[in-house]
């Protein structure tokens, strides 16, 4: 925990210093936009994320006494790099102007905001590709994020019961609520769209990209920004602002949720963890055929 705290603190300080540097150099005459001089970092970050995922060993959820390991270290890392990156991108992106909303900045501030946007892009790309590669390696973790065929029905029942309607009878909740799984799809699609269109916009700093591509990429980027913004607001509301989400928020730092909380809110998930833990499965490493 102490090591995690130290690493997190160092990363946070580094990120803040990076943003301050990016903002300040924009006001120095003769300096280039970071999107022009540092575009290669936007290629480096995804590959670094993929490499990090390849070198990462995951720890599955497990009950430890009166608490449950819900988020291991990689999960915490990918969440915060993606999340903090998204926050800064949304703020700077909105400040730079989108659709009919004019830029809130003037002159050199526009350049400075674009530089800060660049720093957040690098962090965001690392976090997203780290998550993507981890998901490729642990496909069960992706499957548990996807909504089931009962997504809408269970969502209505979940919030109905929350509001006091006892007549709803649904199976015990798994690790993620169905409403969260639906929101996950929104986040997935909007992230993919914002990354693809973002790369096209950055490509225009290097090549002469045809105007019609930019004419499509820019408003699409804006639409994806709005979708991500909506998801972000809902996520922050339910996970950080409403008291019912505070145990989950703590677990995004410590990795653990109280066992009582897990049994109350995610009984199906706890049962699955406990039943998996009861079954010893021998390690089977397939042997390579002789050369």
């Amino acid at each position, binding site marked *: 925990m102490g090591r995690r705290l130290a690493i997190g603190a160092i990363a946070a300080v580094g990120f803040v210093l990076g943003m301050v540097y990016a903002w300040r150099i924009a006001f120095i005459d003769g300096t280039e936009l970071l999107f022009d001089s540092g575009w290669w970092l936007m290629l*480096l970050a995804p*590959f670094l994320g993929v490499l*990090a995922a*390849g070198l990462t060993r*995951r720890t599955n959820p497990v009950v430890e006494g009166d608490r449950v390991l819900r988020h291991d270290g990689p999960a915490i890392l990918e969440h915060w790099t993606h999340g903090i990156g998204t926050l800064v991108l949304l703020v700077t992106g909105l400040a730079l102007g989108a659709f009919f909303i004019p830029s809130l900045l003037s002159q050199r501030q*526009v350049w400075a905001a674009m530089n800060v946007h660049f720093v957040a892009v690098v962090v965001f790309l690392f976090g997203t590709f780290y998550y993507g590669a981890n998901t490729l390696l642990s496909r069960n973790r992706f499957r548990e994020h996807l909504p089931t065929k009962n997504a809408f029905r269970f969502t209505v029942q979940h919030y109905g019961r929350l509001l006091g309607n006892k007549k709803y009878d649904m199976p015990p909740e798994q690790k993620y609520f169905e409403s969260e799984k639906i929101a996950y799809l929104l986040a997935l699609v909007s992230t993919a769209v914002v990354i693809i269109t973002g790369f096209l916009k950055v490509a225009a700093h290097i090549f002469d990209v045809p105007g019609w591509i*930019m004419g499509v990429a820019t408003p699409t980027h804006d639409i994806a920004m709005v979708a991500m913004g909506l998801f972000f607001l809902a996520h922050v509301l339910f996970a950080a602002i409403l008291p019912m989400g505070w145990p989950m928020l703590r677990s995004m730092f410590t990795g653990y949720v109280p066992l009582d909380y897990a049994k109350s809110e995610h009984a199906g998930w706890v049962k699955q963890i406990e039943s998996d833990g009861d*079954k010893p499965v021998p390690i089977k490493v397939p042997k*390579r055929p002789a050369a």
Partner: protein
Amino acid sequence: MSENEERNDEEAYSPQSGLSRRQFVTGLGGIGLGAVLGGVVTGGLAQPASAVAIEGSEGYLVVDGHKCIGCDSCMMACSLTHHGDLSFSQSRIQITQNPFALYPDDLTVAQCRQCPFPACVEACPTGACHVDAAKGNVRTVDASKCIGCERCVNACPFTPSRAIWNGLEKHAEKCDLCADTPFWNEKGGAGGKQACITVCHMKAITLQKDVPVQAGDVGYNVNLRTKDGSAQLNLPTGDDGFYTPAEIAAAKAAAAAAAAAAVAKVGH
């Protein structure tokens, strides 16, 4: 899936490639990282530093403030040919009027100077404001790339800014020497016609190929008065800018002396 089963899934090798999924992901990340870093190092060390030269425009609008009568026909023609709309706000050439000033300072023609080192092009973060080599190196805005940051409008060192904001279509625009005029069936650009020049009945605007003097306004606010017209007003003629009051007085004196000599000759 238990932790052990998950490890088996990740470590399971593919009979085709002989690689496990984890090995593939690690290799992909490592190779990509190496390629990017290698490219950066190679590009930084192997390639010499280069300077980017911006080609000069092949045409420059020059005006004669003495001839302009403030009819605003150029502004109307500019907005009509570019937008099909009569709007002074969408004109890329502006006539400003100062009712408290005396002639010739009561009217100012603010045309784009097609600067040899365009601040608007340098300021644009997306390349929307650029030098169009295909159209005589005219400095123009590609509206489809414009993100509306208005840095070009702020960057223009002149007042009013020669790069203007189109509030209806939400993009910047500027004088392109009529290179792109969807509402005018004439070939424009540095080698073609300009609507403002065509419509100006005072012939107060013209296009010249040589780079004007950049210091001050003398290069862009020139003497376009014809020899015949100026002679009738007893004003000296020339194409190299303004004359001082002393030069004008000397020219008038010379003209008067010549007229007196002509009268005297007739008298004899």
